[in-house]
């Protein structure tokens, strides 16, 4: 796997931000040349006579989906490392309707407002200023909107996962959907031009057939390649995973708000002592219904006293569930207890001990685990090959 490169993490933040400007420039350039700096071109979409918005956008989506599918079929792209916007059905239906209404009133969507402003359009500047005011309106209305905003969450769900089909196959379906939509709107454009005694938008069959032909060809190649090299089976997203105490402790330290951590022992034991950051189960909820109501934007980790069977509530939940192997007992033994160091540790054992000591200190508040007698790491037993050259 080569892609994604993720320079914001890998090459440092500044490089990432410079790349942000560069990708933004390319995006803005294409949008302007596509005609999206002019409100009349954009609003025309909603009167049927010129469907430029649909054509550009749908071709863009199809091209991207096809290329991502093809690269993943070729083993060059890890699809599951791409950020997929989360699904929140209700808010996205209402937000979409409102945004469409604002779009036809203003004549721009937020991004095209920027491009219009860049070409000297004052209505574009005012539109983007309006978008900023809209954020403030949203914030002011937050107490009334919060409940709805957090409803209908399904986590990151891709259509290919939902349909149980490979990504390139769904990308090919997107191309087919796009091409049939284009055929329909071109027919509509011709019919309306005749009725309104105007002219239909310019047709360039060579450019259209050439562009869509290339995209279609890549889509078929992606499906064919994926067919001959079946990808590794995707893990069933609803089957709960297992997490060991040490990994869990590391994740709590690294990203405390990336998890829902729920203690499923009886409320009394939970109140007495629990893993930091864990919430206790309500006493009257044997079914675990409250788990199903958590927003699925984080990973849910549940634990009992020892190993645990996942309650039905967690099965109904839409996000990823992990069960702490060995439960609270394992956490006490592996994280809260001082780690032991063998008398003659290898370098790997010493590193492991250092990590465990740091975690034990973090969770127990002790400044240091009991010190070992001065140790020198033993050389690892000789293996078949020796590494040549330096390196870390």
């Amino acid at each position, binding site marked *: 796997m080569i892609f994604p490169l993720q320079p914001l993490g890998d090459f440092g933040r500044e490089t*990432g931000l410079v790349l942000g400007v560069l990708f933004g420039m390319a*995006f803005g350039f294409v949008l302007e040349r596509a*005609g999206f*700096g002019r*409100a009349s071109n954009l609003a025309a979409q909603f009167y049927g006579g010129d469907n430029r918005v649909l054509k550009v956008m749908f*071709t863009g989506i199809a*091209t991207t989906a096809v290329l991502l599918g093809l690269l993943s079929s070729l083993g060059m792209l890890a699809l599951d490392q791409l950020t997929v916007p989360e699904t929140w059905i209700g808010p996205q239906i209402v937000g979409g309707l409102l945004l469409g209404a*604002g779009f036809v009133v203003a004549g721009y969507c937020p991004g095209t407002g920027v491009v219009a*402003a860049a070409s000297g359009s004052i209505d574009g500047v005012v539109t983007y200023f309006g978008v900023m005011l809209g954020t403030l309106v949203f914030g002011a209305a937050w107490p009334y909107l919060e409940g709805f905003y957090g409803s209908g969450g399904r986590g990151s769900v891709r259509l290919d996962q939902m349909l149980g089909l490979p990504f390139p196959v769904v990308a090919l379906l997107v191309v087919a959907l796009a091409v049939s939509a284009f055929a329909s709107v071109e027919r509509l454009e011709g019919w309306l031009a005749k009725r309104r005694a105007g002219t239909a938008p310019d047709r360039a069959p060579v450019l259209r057939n050439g562009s869509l032909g290339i995209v279609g060809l890549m889509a078929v190649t992606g499906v064919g390649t994926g067919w001959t090299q079946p990808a590794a089976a995707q893990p069933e997203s609803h089957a709960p995973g297992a997490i060991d105490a040490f990994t869990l402790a590391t994740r709590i330290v690294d990203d405390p708000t990336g998890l829902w951590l729920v203690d499923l022992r009886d409320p009394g034991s939970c109140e007495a002592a629990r893993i930091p950051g864990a919430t206790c189960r309500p006493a009257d909820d044997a079914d675990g219904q409250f788990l199903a109501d958590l927003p699925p934007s984080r990973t849910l980790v549940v634990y009992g006293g020892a190993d645990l069977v996942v309650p039905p509530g967690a099965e109904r939940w839409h996000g990823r569930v992990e069960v702490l192997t060995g439960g609270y007992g394992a956490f006490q033994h592996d994280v809260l207890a001082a780690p032991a160091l063998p008398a003659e540790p290898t370098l790997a054992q010493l590193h492991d001990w250092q990590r465990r000591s740091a975690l034990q200190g973090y969770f127990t508040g002790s400044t240091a685990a009991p010190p070992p007698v001065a140790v020198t790491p033993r050389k690892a037993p000789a293996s078949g090959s020796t590494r040549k050259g330096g390196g870390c």
Partner: protein
Amino acid sequence: MSPLDSKVPRPPAAFWNPYVAGVALGLVLTATFLVMGFGLGGSGAANRIAIGAAHVVAPATVEANGYFGSFVGPGTRILDDWLVFEVLGMFLGGSIAAYSAGRMHLHVGSTQGIGTATRLAYSLGGGILMGVAARLARGCTSGQALTGGSVLSLGSWVFMFAVFAGGYLVAPLVRRQWR
């Protein structure tokens, strides 16, 4: 006399064929995904600029707000964000494209049917609607429909159909503007 000194204005370059523009858009978005691991956005910068400006004016109110509170506070720099730089780039790229195509001039567009003041009022009103909508939907036509649609996000496709539905529903009410 070089062509640049010519007093006769050149007609602006034609817009690209929409299908060619769509493929170009797809190539830009694919490149962004391959390098960054995420896609493009349009309204995230407006969100951050607005909250940042409000925070300068009324810090206590903004920090106490349930939605804004997570964006501001000790140790946060609200404008230090990829989407802000990306939108800055959009402005630059759009300027280069408009200038090189001969379309760069200060103007208020589409005022034929309704006049300048009404046109600007519509722009502002539509913008405010979209600002609320983009927060609710967690993205706009760029970040949700285009970007999320390309990685086959269920919610992005739902959002995209809702955008078209909303546009077609309201279009008859503002028809006069687009004559």
